């Protein structure tokens, strides 16, 4: 990836700011998502809640399904590859989708290395639980970051934890004397060049969305008020009672995140949210956020 291409890819993410990216499993769902105001869709065979309950190895979706979703909408289409599976990424680049999510929601293909994203022209978004992970992914060529949260749970607690952790670490770095930076980078596994940029800007140099467990308009607004640039909603929409209405409400709550009256108005009578899962009830080895390093 040339430096110019990397900037263009980060700039596409800038145009998604303040928006909601929705997981969809069929062209029909993609059309609903576009119609209610999603800024992009994530094309998947199974939403994280189903991956979690059905188990087995989760891989890149069928290219035929991704193509059908691409044909159905004009908004950007994203799709997931397994961590480290650079051939799945090559396939998605050949499909000319708009963004690749190197995602912990799928079963990792490599437990040591993430994809070298600088070798691609297509943009990548990657998950992170903290500043170190975010900066390592940026150093590998990610043009967008999202908090991992705990996908498929309908429980926002991990997304909040990851965002607060990242913000706390950024504030620490921002106020740090420069001579302390090297030691901080060593302890946190932070790439120095990226850390320098974060320290100067007081935030990540790329767009940072929230993901993993967002199920209600209030959840989306919470993540925006915590400083995310936008939100991914996975299982929370099409696993709920009235997906179109809930999706529209989440879009509106994301735009008017600091206006409780508007969020109140869109939150009433939305029907059943997806059933949630308490994090402690998930065995440690089944926690998706632990995947990646």
């Amino acid at each position, binding site marked *: 990836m040339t430096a110019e291409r990397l900037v263009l890819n980060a700039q596409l993410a800038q145009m998604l700011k303040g928006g909601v990216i929705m997981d969809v499993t069929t062209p029909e769902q993609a059309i609903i998502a576009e119609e209610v*105001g999603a800024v992009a869709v994530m094309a998947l065979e199974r939403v994280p809640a189903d991956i979690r309950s059905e188990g087995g190895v989760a891989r890149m979706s069928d290219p035929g399904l991704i193509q059908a979703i691409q044909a159905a909408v004009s908004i950007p289409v994203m799709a997931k590859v397994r961590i480290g599976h650079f051939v799945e990424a090559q396939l998605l680049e050949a499909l000319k989708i708009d963004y690749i999510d190197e995602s912990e929601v799928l079963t990792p293909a490599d437990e040591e290395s993430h994809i070298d994203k600088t070798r691609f022209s297509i943009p990548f978004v990657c998950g992170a639980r903290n500043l170190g992970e975010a900066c390592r992914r940026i150093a590998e060529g990610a043009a967008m970051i999202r908090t991992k949260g705990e996908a498929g749970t309908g429980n926002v607690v991990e997304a909040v934890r990851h965002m607060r952790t990242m913000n706390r670490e950024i504030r620490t770095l921002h106020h740090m004397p420069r001579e302390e930076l090297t030691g901080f980078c060593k302890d946190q596994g932070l790439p120095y060049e990226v850390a320098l940029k974060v320290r100067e800007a007081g935030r990540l140099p790329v767009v940072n969305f929230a993901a993993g467990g967002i199920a209600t308009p209030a959840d989306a607004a919470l993540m925006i008020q915590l400083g995310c640039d936008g939100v991914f909603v996975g299982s929370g929409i099409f696993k709920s009672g009235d997906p179109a209405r809930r999706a529209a409400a989440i879009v509106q709550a994301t735009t008017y995140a600091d206006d409780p009256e508007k969020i109140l108005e869109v939150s009433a009578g939305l029907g059943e949210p997806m059933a949630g899962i308490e994090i402690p009830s998930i065995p440690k080895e089944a926690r998706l956020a632990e995947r990646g390093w």
Partner: protein
Amino acid sequence: MSGIIGVLALQGGVVEHLAHLAALGLPARRVRQAADFEGLTGLILPGGESTCLSRLLRRYGLDREIAAGLRAGLKLWGTCAGAILLAREVVGETASLGLMDIRVQRNAFGSQLDSFNRTLQVPAVAPEPIPLTFIRAPKILHLGTAVSPLLEIDDYCAAAEDRDILVTVFHPELTPSLAFHRYFAGKCGIPLPPREDAPADWQADSWVDYAPIPCHPRHAAGGAGRGRSAG
């Protein structure tokens, strides 16, 4: 004339426009509800996703505010998705605001792999060549009689204007050039500040200054300015 330029702040590239307006010393405001239109001279409709923006405009009645503003002399500038919102005709889709007599094709170049930069001369806007950033850009395919082209490339028009509205399918707010923001200020009748370029330290990620994390000292102070921490 108050000289305030608004940036429609529903979704998309809002802070990038605010940063450019600030670099020119122009008073600016985020516009998200009817009350925000009070005293505006111009309004920028930024890039983002046009379906998302059009749904929010309609849901909160801002489409009517924009149309009423235009009738009362408000100047409009749509970049990328903003240009799609303003078009009277959108290929294969229902038009949104439909305020300008142009036909556009959404996402006309292909996928993100087909996004690109060009540097071209736009004589009406600036004497020097200007960097232009096209991201999943639309094309303007047809101009009505009251609309004049500002930049034509190959088989399409990339920038155009009528008496009250400017449209660009590219993103001047993603480049260091202030030329189009200066041009729009002129269209709004705002006295032009002395000619100056973007800050010498402008980088592609300069927008981050306007999107700080919460509890950030600059956020508390209003978030403006390209401050540097001591260290």
